[in-house]
């Protein structure tokens, strides 16, 4: 199993926006050159990208097995979890604004009202998808909610 990490995803997303040289990847991702080189080496060894001249580009002929590995749900859970955990840590340990958490009782009408607001939020974010900018300047946003007892029950089962 190829454990696809947040560093590999970030660089892959950067190259996916257009073929880039090492220097361009470095500026687009905001990562150190040594880290970029290590990640690019790993991505090339796996056959996800290739180099033509000085430019790195996506490998068009990915096998279904590799695509399945990239979409592995367990791996994605860990990958997204690591980003969310950083926000939780930053918020709780450093007092930053990167994570908000509320636990409330909601009536059925409250739930409907919240659902409507989340729908509006999602529509707004979908409208921003065509915006282009450096990968390092992108913001990830998350939301959701779960019944308290159900979440605890899932956690201990």
């Amino acid at each position, binding site marked *: 199993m190829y454990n696809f990490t947040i*560093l590999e995803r970030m660089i892959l997303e950067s190259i996916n926006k257009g073929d880039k040289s090492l220097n361009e990847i470095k500026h687009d991702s905001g990562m150190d050159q040594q880290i970029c080189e*290590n990640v690019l080496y790993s991505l090339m060894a796996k056959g996800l990208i290739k180099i033509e001249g000085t430019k790195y580009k996506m490998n068009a002929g990915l096998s279904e097995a590799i695509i399945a590995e990239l979409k592995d749900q*367990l791996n994605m859970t860990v990958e997204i979890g690591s980003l969310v955990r950083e926000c939780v840590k930053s918020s709780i340990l450093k007092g930053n604004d990167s994570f908000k958490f509320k636990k409330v009782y909601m009536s059925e009408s409250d739930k409907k009202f919240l659902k409507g607001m989340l729908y509006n939020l999602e529509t707004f974010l979908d409208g921003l998808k065509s915006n282009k900018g450096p990968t390092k300047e992108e913001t990830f946003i998350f939301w959701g909610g779960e019944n308290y007892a159900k979440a605890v029950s899932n956690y201990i089962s």
Partner: protein
Amino acid sequence: MNYQNSIIKNYRKIFPNRSLRVSAEEIGINMTRLHRIFNGAEMKLHEYEAFERCLRKHSCKPSQLNFIERIIEGLSVMSESELGFFEVEINHILKLKQFTGGLSTIEQSAIAQ
């Protein structure tokens, strides 16, 4: 390389000049038995554990050793799905350390194996 060879190779790398008598005392295995193990006799489970304890003792602080013991205890009570998740988490941490230069060459080759 099987696990026994790997653990002995690791032991000899860390303690290249340690005599058989001192090794036997440190590991807690009879000297004759240890001589046989070094010459290819198959280790028993408690002997593996004795070697591992000895190697860990060398590379970890007491607080880390306690932590490792707790991790082993935790692993033993985890369900299969929890173990799968934990394994992927550990793989991510190790891989990120490889990328960011947080692992030595020896540790990187150990992961590659």
